[in-house]
């Protein structure tokens, strides 16, 4: 049974015209007509400034926008800098676009991007989100350069964060991925990242493109795949990031479903890789390792605690099937504690997460439901975090974050035990 190609004939034709390239920048889009022209110009500017001699292509993969995003991309004229006698770059900067008709999905878009990278034999690629409004030419160069010149295979971004931003990444995803996969990638889930053609080809060969985890959040999967294939990962400090107000990020429930769901799935599908790893070597980081800005007031989140408490109550049977009786009892106990003295300790938090991961592996209930059951607990943990750190300096918070990471690493044997044990 011959499988239908997911690449349209017209797209192949465009790829043929472009021919071999050195660099590929992919822009997945969905209703980004208002910002994509700006993004495109930043990319072109970056290529002109930093990769004068390289053959480059900019690829827009559109998820069936209703607002002419694709037309804007194709027709927006190349902005000529006031160069010498109006001359621009050495080479044509190719611009191609394609569309997929299923619902918008990062994974489907990425599949076209890695396919193009593979077919055009691109050496370095980057994925750029048109929703990021403060994208500068330097960003794109910073994602491409480590791949193109330093031989890295995956480059994650690093952003400046205010103290109370990105807690899911800082309190869960980063420390857990560091302990589990041994990869010190701070922003495992981001809208911009760079990767090598080699990694693109490997990704393309994987038969996972229909998996929900890959369809929604392919970037973490890519990073884990790079790690498991023994390829080099790195991260590049980009600066602060702002997102266009029209594209508000996912709410907390969706964010956890997407990221934690994809994270657990990565664990599930890469068992031989992570189970044997016991250390997390530092990765090449360009620019400062991590930067928290002191601004940001802790949001007063009385309601978070209520949601935590009611969640523990209402979901009792579900939590009981996921957690060990001991852990479940501890959580129930803290849920009864006084609001002001509430503490969700790191040790308990790590244990909870590891038990969730193991239960995900054993599929004790629908995996999506399992991940959703984590939401109230996460809220409890964040509430506790906010209480503790209302007035902490960024340095203190950094130190705490490091302690959490070590806790995750310390308890990894427990994860293995739960994971391999029979329920």
């Amino acid at each position, binding site marked *: 049974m011959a499988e239908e190609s997911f690449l349209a004939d017209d797209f192949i034709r465009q790829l043929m015209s472009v021919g071999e390239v050195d660099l590929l920048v992919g822009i997945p889009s969905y209703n980004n007509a208002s910002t994509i022209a700006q993004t495109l110009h930043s990319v072109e500017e970056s290529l002109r400034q930093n990769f004068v001699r390289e053959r480059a292509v900019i690829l827009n993969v559109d998820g069936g926008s209703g607002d002419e995003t694709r037309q804007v991309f194709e027709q927006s004229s190349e902005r000529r800098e006031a160069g010498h006698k109006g001359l621009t770059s050495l080479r044509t900067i190719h611009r191609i676009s394609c569309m997929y008709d299923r619902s918008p999905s990062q994974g489907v878009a990425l599949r076209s991007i890695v396919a193009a990278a593979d077919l055009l034999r691109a050496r370095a690629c980057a994925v750029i989100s048109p929703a990021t409004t403060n994208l500068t030419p330097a960003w794109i160069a910073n994602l491409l350069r480590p791949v193109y010149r330093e031989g890295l295979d995956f480059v994650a971004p690093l952003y400046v964060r205010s103290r109370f931003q990105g807690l*899911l990444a800082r309190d869960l995803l980063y420390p857990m991925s560091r302990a589990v996969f041994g990869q010190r990638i701070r922003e495992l889930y981001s809208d911009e990242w760079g990767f090598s053609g080699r990694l693109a080809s490997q990704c393309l060969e994987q038969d996972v493109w229909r998996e929900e985890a890959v369809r929604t959040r392919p970037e973490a999967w890519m990073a884990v795949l790079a790690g498991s294939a023994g390829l080099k990962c790195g991260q590049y400090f980009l600066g602060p990031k702002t997102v266009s107000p029209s594209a508000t*990020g996912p709410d*907390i429930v969706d964010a956890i479903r997407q990221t934690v769901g994809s994270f657990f799935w990565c664990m599930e599908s890469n068992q031989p890789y992570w189970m044997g790893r016991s250390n997390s070597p530092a990765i090449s980081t360009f620019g400062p390792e991590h930067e928290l800005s002191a601004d940001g007031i802790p949001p007063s*989140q009385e309601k978070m605690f209520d949601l935590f408490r*009611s969640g523990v109550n*209402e979901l009792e049977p579900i939590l009981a099937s996921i957690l060990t009786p001991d852990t479940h009892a501890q959580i129930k106990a803290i849920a009864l504690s006084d609001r002001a003295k509430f503490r969700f300790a790191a040790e308990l938090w790590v244990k909870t997460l590891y038990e969730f991961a193991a239960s995900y592996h054993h599929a004790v209930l629908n*995996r999506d439901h399992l991940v*959703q059951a984590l939401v109230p607990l996460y*809220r409890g943990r964040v509430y506790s975090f906010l209480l503790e750190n209302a007035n902490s300096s960024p340095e203190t918070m950094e130190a705490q974050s490091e302690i959490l990471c070590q806790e995750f690493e310390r308890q990894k044997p427990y994860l293995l035990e739960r994971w391999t044990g029979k329920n």
Partner: protein
Amino acid sequence: MKEVIIQGLRQAYSNLVHMFAEFLPRLLVMLVIVLVGLVVAYLLKTILRAVLHVTRLDRLSEEAGASRFLRMAALPSMTELLSRSLFWVTWCGFILIGISVLGVAGLQEQISRLFLLLPAIFVAILILFVGLVTANFLSRAALLAAVNAGYPSPKLLSWSIRFVIWALAVSMALEQVGVARQTVIAAFSIVFGAFMFGLAIAFGLGGKDLAREFLERNLGEKKREKYEEPQPL
């Protein structure tokens, strides 16, 4: 007299021998049929499994979400399930054919009735199973959604959903088997109607506040403080 008796006994004996002589080949035939049936069923199972494997049914069922139900019901994969079912259905068929070859009076009729009822029972069981799994799944989904969104009384919502689906599944199953059709339909209508009525009243009463809130928010001044969580990513 004695001769008559002996005659009768001899007659009976010869009859028995005759009957036995007549029955034995049939029994043998039946055994052969059952054995052949076993082989055929096994072959069919193997072939179906191979075919399903080639057509990647498991991936299809995974995508359709059916595999999750099976996993939760501790059932094997779709391919395995189908091929095993085929095996048993085929073999049972052969056994029944074999029994009918025995020519036992009355049994024939019962078997043919069983043959007629078999699909209905099978479908009914399937409906109950699917209903159970669906009710479980949807009620849990509702519970999680309600809890995470902070809606009041999530358990009630979850149980209501579970109950409605159960009621629907049970009535469908009974209807399928053909037990007291009219009664079942009427009973279900009453239960479902009552439930809907209850829901309507509940929503009506609860919705009063909701509606006011909605109107206030959209038409009145926007003084309602917004609940905002720290940006997760």
